[in-house]
């Protein structure tokens, strides 16, 4: 059929490969290769039990304890409260009950689910991957369809290894050229979301392309795809290439050496055809992007560190005017304030956005031989990242700079484990959401890259990393 030869996007190719059938009314029944479970998935397990069902394909399910785990100690007894400890214990019980392979609190493979999955080779090109967590989009960085689902959908996946989904539209985000010194994947995403808005990619799957992306490490690509959900994208994806194959090879749950060549040959076919048409195109020039910082309570409220807090009265959209006014009240910021120099109370380096080894290296490079002026904590994205950082001497740099060197988990990103930013406190954070109360009731979050967070720690205020 001529139709079959029409140029296709990577999204279409991977989607078609997983479509079991299409319902006459629209949605596809997609086969799900791998499902990731965390403590918050307990509703889905309760649902299965109520139905008298068990996970249908336990070998394609993987569990990781991350959202509620303590970062000071590695048993549920170290948890901040009995209710939090219960979440961790329930997770273990559910995993045992379901016969699901899992990396519990004391496992050396434990970590934040979206850090662990690529690290273990659970995330691979060409797969469909779900997890009941919105930042599952992270995992599309290896050339997979990866997306967050709710607990009802999760129960559906556990019971059937499938999910009903409408195919999203496609958006290609091309980042040309190269990034300037001190500019990272995090800054690219904040710049993109500031440009298109927090709802800007709603209903779309983003494919990141362009020279900046091709030159970027897997870790940077994971950061890009991670934050694509903050632009409301369904998925974030990067075409697999030599960088991807080199990253994946030899990992625990990846194809073995006998299977390798066939797998790579197949993965090479998955990239978007040269003349594939995307529903929307967005282009950024790498050289135009500066280190970014947020001033408000939505990731779209981002400007260059050289910028100022905007004046909401100059916005042309009435809803945005109202929202920005409320944000500034919450953030206790006046229009026109210079962001550089704004006093902080805390620094948090961590989360599935920016807690991989390269992130820690970038922060340590700034911190070396310097001291933090304010409370600062660093929470590695996984226990493996933690061990590697210790072996490389990075942990020592953080400690000498006065940072608290914690155990791995989600920690202060979502404040579910009891690691919180206090009411009214201002925190420079490498996480992904500056929502009202996200890091604790009344907490004020400024999203930045790891290097910017390190610079903020040593000066005690928001600081342009290029000037330290």
């Amino acid at each position: 059929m001529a139709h079959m030869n029409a140029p296709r996007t990577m999204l279409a190719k991977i989607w078609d490969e997983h479509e079991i059938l299409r319902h006459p009314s629209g949605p596809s029944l997609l086969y799900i290769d791998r499902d990731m479970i965390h403590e918050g998935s307990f509703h889905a397990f309760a649902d299965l039990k109520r139905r008298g069902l068990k996970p249908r394909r336990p070998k394609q399910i993987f569990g990781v304890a991350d959202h509620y785990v303590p970062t000071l100690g590695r048993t549920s007894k170290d948890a901040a409260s009995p209710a939090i400890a219960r979440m961790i214990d329930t997770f273990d019980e559910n995993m045992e009950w379901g016969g699901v392979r899992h990396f519990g609190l004391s496992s050396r493979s434990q970590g934040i689910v979206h850090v662990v999955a690529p690290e273990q080779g659970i995330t691979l090109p060409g797969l469909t991957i779900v997890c009941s967590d919105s930042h599952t989009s992270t995992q599309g960085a290896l050339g997979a369809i990866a997306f967050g689902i709710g607990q009802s959908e999760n129960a559906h996946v556990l019971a059937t290894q499938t999910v009903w989904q409408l195919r999203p539209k496609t958006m290609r985000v091309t980042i040309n050229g190269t990034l300037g010194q001190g500019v990272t994947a995090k800054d690219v995403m904040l710049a993109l979301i500031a440009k298109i808005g927090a709802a800007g990619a709603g209903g779309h799957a983003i494919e990141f392309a362009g020279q900046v992306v091709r030159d970027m490490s897997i870790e940077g690509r994971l950061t890009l795809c991670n934050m694509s959900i903050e632009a409301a994208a369904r998925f974030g994806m990067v075409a697999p290439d030599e960088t991807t194959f080199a990253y994946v090879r030899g990992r625990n749950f990846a194809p073995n050496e006998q299977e390798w060549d066939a797998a790579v040959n197949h993965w090479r076919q998955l990239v978007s055809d040269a003349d594939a048409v995307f529903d929307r195109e967005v282009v950024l020039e790498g050289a135009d992007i500066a280190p970014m910082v947020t001033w408000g309570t939505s990731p779209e409220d981002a400007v260059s560190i050289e910028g100022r807090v905007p004046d909401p009265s100059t916005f042309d959209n009435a809803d945005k005017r109202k929202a920005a006014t409320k944000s500034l009240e919450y953030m206790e910021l006046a229009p026109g304030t210079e962001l550089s120099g704004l006093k902080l109370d805390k620094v948090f380096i961590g989360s599935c956005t920016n807690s991989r080894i390269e992130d820690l290296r970038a922060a340590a490079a700034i911190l070396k031989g310097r001291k933090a002026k304010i409370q600062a904590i660093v929470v590695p994205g996984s226990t493996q990242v933690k061990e590697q950082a210790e072996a490389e001497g990075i942990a020592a740099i953080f400690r000498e700079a006065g940072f608290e060197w914690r155990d791995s988990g989600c920690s202060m990103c979502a404040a579910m484990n009891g690691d919180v930013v206090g009411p009214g406190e201002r925190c420079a954070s490498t996480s992904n959401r500056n929502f009202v109360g996200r890091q604790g009731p009344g907490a004020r979050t400024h999203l930045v890259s790891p290097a910017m967070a390190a610079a903020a720690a040593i000066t005690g205020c928001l600081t342009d990393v290029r000037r330290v």
Partner: protein
Amino acid sequence: MKAFTKETSTVVAVPGVNCDTDQIIPGRFLKADRAQGYGQFLFHDIRRDEAGELDPAFPLNREGAERSTILLVEDNFGCGSSREGAVYALVDHGIRAVIGPSFGDIFFNNALKNGLVPVRLSAEQCDGLADYLARFPDAEVTVDLENAQLVLPGNLRRHPIVIDAFARECILQGLDEIEMTFTYMEKIKAFETERMASHAWLAR
């Protein structure tokens, strides 16, 4: 899932663009067992003042608001975290439909799985409805899923409800999706066998 055919109610307008799921239910309440009801956590922190008392100015705290089963919201409602607890909180509070210009995709899906109907209405029409409700707070709106119509009060025009036919069918009948998918199990297994033949490493 509770079936939904038609719902008529007064409407509570909850202001704020990008109202994320952390606002709908703060993370610290997500540990709760569903059996205890999630309604008590709905908009927990934004409904209350600094002392933790219900803020009488918050729309949902106004007298009579507890009888409303329909919310009017702003752009990108339910963005952020995939927590289905946000939908549980709305449903357990008694909300059956949410009208707004756009919704977070995962929230939208979660809502449909729980019999909560998200209705997309253009920003201008939402503003028109909000203005009308400000003048006539007792006005009623009907979400008629059976006829895919949103019936607005006064001289505001009717509006078609656009939800994919599949989700609409499920929600109209209160269909259990897992049960329904089980009817395709043979196809799923055939597909799976073929996939595993070329991807043996997937299920090791």
